[in-house]
Every structure is written in structure tokens, then in C-alpha cells.
């Protein structure tokens, strides 16, 4: 009986681990063979199709779905459940507990809170502020870092605010 409970918990945890990479299409979108807009089309992903996210490259996600596998535009996909991820939170909590309990590297949230209560009661910490200020980087530091990392500066205008008349007409 204890073993059965353990297996049940294990099954929940395993299912949720997969569910973390789950998503759905917010609109009908093309499935591409490569992560480029001019790549060959591998099929069509219908609106609300459930997908499993396998990888990301730039603005593209590699997915697997009932309609086939391939690359889709990242912003055509939302993560979580189609219904807004309401029902399975308890299971996910169970999973979080299980994971943080079994591994030192997993992150358990909410252990040390920066929550509303903490902020309400916070007293200004000027010693910590002085510590923060001592780590400041100069423009020269930043430029040295960027050239070491091979970062190429681009000239790009800000995006206009979309019409407030509702979701994108695409």
C-alpha cells in the first residue's frame, strides 16, 4: 500500500515534469522544418493544438504535437494549460516539494520570501546599499565585457504601441 502510494506520487511527479514543457497554439500557425521563416513547411498547427516544447532557437520553438513535429514561431505558443492552468496546481506543489527535497540544486520557491509582509516591515538598510554601490561597473568595464562576448550593437527603433482595439489581427 505504501509502495502503491509512492508509485502514484512518482507518476504525478513524472507527468508534471513533462507538463512543464507543455504548451498550446494561440492561433493556427505553420510548422517549419527549420527555425527560419523561409524554411520548408512541414504542416499546420491548428489553433489550441497541444504541443510539447523540445527546444528553443531565437524566435522559434521546436515542438512535437499530434499534427507532427517541427519549428513554430515562439509567440504563437503559450505555456501552461489551455484552460489557464487552474486545476493541477496542487500536484505541481507536490512536485516542487518532492524535487526540492530530493536534490540540492533544485530551486524551492517561497522559502525565503520577499513577500508583501517582508516589504511592509522593511527598514531601510543603508549598509547593504553601500555594498551594492561598491560593485558599480564603469562604461569602460561594460565595453570591455561586450567586446569579449562578441556582442554586436544594433540600431533599432522602439516598437510602436499596438492598437488598443484588441488582439493582433493576424
Amino acid at each position, binding site marked *: 500500500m505504501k509502495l502503491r502510494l509512492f508509485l502514484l506520487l512518482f507518476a504525478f511527479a513524472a507527468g508534471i515534469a513533462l507538463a512543464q514543457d507543455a504548451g498550446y497554439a494561440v492561433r493556427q500557425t505553420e510548422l517549419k522544418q527549420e527555425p527560419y521563416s523561409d524554411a520548408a513547411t512541414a504542416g499546420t498547427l491548428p489553433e489550441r493544438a497541444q504541443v510539447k516544447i523540445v527546444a528553443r532557437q531565437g524566435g522559434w520553438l521546436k515542438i512535437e504535437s499530434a499534427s507532427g513535429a517541427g519549428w513554430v514561431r*515562439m509567440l504563437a505558443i503559450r505555456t501552461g494549460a489551455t484552460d489557464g492552468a487552474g486545476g493541477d496546481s496542487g500536484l505541481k506543489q507536490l512536485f516542487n516539494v518532492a524535487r526540492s527535497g530530493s536534490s540540492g540544486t533544485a530551486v524551492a*520557491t517561497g522559502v525565503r520570501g520577499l513577500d508583501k509582509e517582508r516589504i511592509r516591515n522593511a527598514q531601510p538598510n543603508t549598509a547593504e546599499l553601500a555594498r551594492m554601490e561598491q560593485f558599480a561597473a564603469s562604461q569602460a568595464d561594460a*565595453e570591455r565585457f561586450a567586446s569579449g562576448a562578441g556582442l554586436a550593437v544594433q540600431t533599432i527603433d522602439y*516598437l510602436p504601441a499596438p492598437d488598443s482595439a484588441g488582439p493582433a489581427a493576424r
Partner: protein
Amino acid sequence: MTSRAAIAGSILAFALASAPVSAQFRFDLNRIIDTAKTLTQASAEVSESQEVDIGRQYAAVLLGAAPLVRDPELQRYVNTLGRWVALHAERPALAWHFGVLDSDNVNAFATPGGFVLITKGLLARTRSEAELANVLAHEIAHVVKKHHLNAIRKGAGMQAGVNILGDYVAQGSRNPEIARRLVSGMKEVMLRGLDQDDELEADRMGVVIAARSGYDPYGLPAVLQTLSAMNPQDSGLALLFATHPAPGARLDALDAAMDARLERHAGSARGSAEFERVTRRK
């Protein structure tokens, strides 16, 4: 006392309704309007050094709620990365400061004048330097647009007819009562959050600032997808979710704004090897 005030109010209302507007009353009304104008102007003209002073106090309150992670290398790394990203927004010369808070909660904060703090919990959920750069760029946009000053001015700053920013500009924070009210106004903004449109604007600006800095602008949508895949009941997300539009709504807005405009920058860097080393992923 309350009923006396009510009676006085009724008498005033009756006087306003029935009596011809007297010169005396018109004078008083003009004086009230003038005072209101002065206060509004005063709060609109927060100088840069006052803004930095407010921001330092704001940051000190956040650091009072959670200290910095005791890792100088990590702190220097986020300062260098953050400074680089900030060079590609409108206020490159500001004395920018960045820090990682020792909290498992998932959140990031900016304060006026260029102080940006990210929690260890959110840092742990970014999967590349590009994602971290996009988060910092979102916060940098708040600073550049002075969204926090707007929030203090509009919301908490007008409690019971008290103009926190106006009083601060007029008298400085040496007056303990003004200092106390300023801190309470800042806390109010931290708890209630910014204007939701300001959050969406910071998202739209953040992806562009990150792309200008040479990073993949899809780092921000990637972080938002990570957040929306998390359990929304997770207590570590409570404050972030209470103060920001839902990640799905933010993705919808970015989807509409980005369209394919930034697609050619999607191949930009995902980051330096330093990210992996300093955040101890490998």
C-alpha cells in the same frame, strides 16, 4: 465631529447652490487651484539628483527586505552586463547599479535613478545571458521612463491630500515626516505595482534595448513563457503576479507589438560563457 463636518459641508453646499458666487469665494477657489498647480508642477520637476536620492532610499528599503547574495563575482557580473545594456537606452550616463537579492521569490525591481535588483529566484530561472539581459532591459526601461515616479505621484503620493513628491521637492527628505511619507509611498508602489500599461511599455522597450545591445530579443518572451509554465499558486510568484499583468497577457501584447519586426535579431547572441560560470550552471 464627523456630524459637525457634515453639517458644515451641507451649509457650504447650500451656500454654493443658492448664493451668487462672491468675490471672496472666487478668490479662495483661485488660490486653491493655484496651490494645486504649484504642487503638480513641483512633483513634475524632480531633478535628476533628487530622483537618484529617492531611488537610493527606495533601494535601501528593498535591501532591508532582502540582502544581496554574498557573491562579489556575481554582483560584479550583473553590474557589468546591466551597465552594457543600459548604454543602449536613453539615459546611458546615469550612475547605474545592479544587484542580485538573496531571495528565492521570483521578481525583479527597479527604482528611480538607476537601481535595478533581481532576485536569486528569478536569476535561477533564466536560461541564458540573453534572457537575463532582457529582464534587466525591462527594468532599465522603467527607470528611463520614470514609471516609479509616476506611480508615486498618481497613487500613493496623494494620500489624504498629501503630495509626497511635491513636499519632498519643496523641502527635501531631512524633514523626518516627509522622509517617512516618502518611504511609505515607495512601499505602496512596491506592493501595488506600476501602471499595467507601463509594464507593457517596459516589455516593448526591453526587447528593443536588449536587441540593440546585441542580445536575442526573444529572451524576454522566453522568460515569460517560463513564468507562465510555473504553478501560479506558487507563493514565490505571488508578489510578481499581484503587481504585473499575467505572463500570458504580456506575451499577447509582445506578440502584437513584435510581430516579425525583431525577427532578424533573433539570431543575436544568447550570451557569454561568463553567465554559465558565474551563475554556476556548469
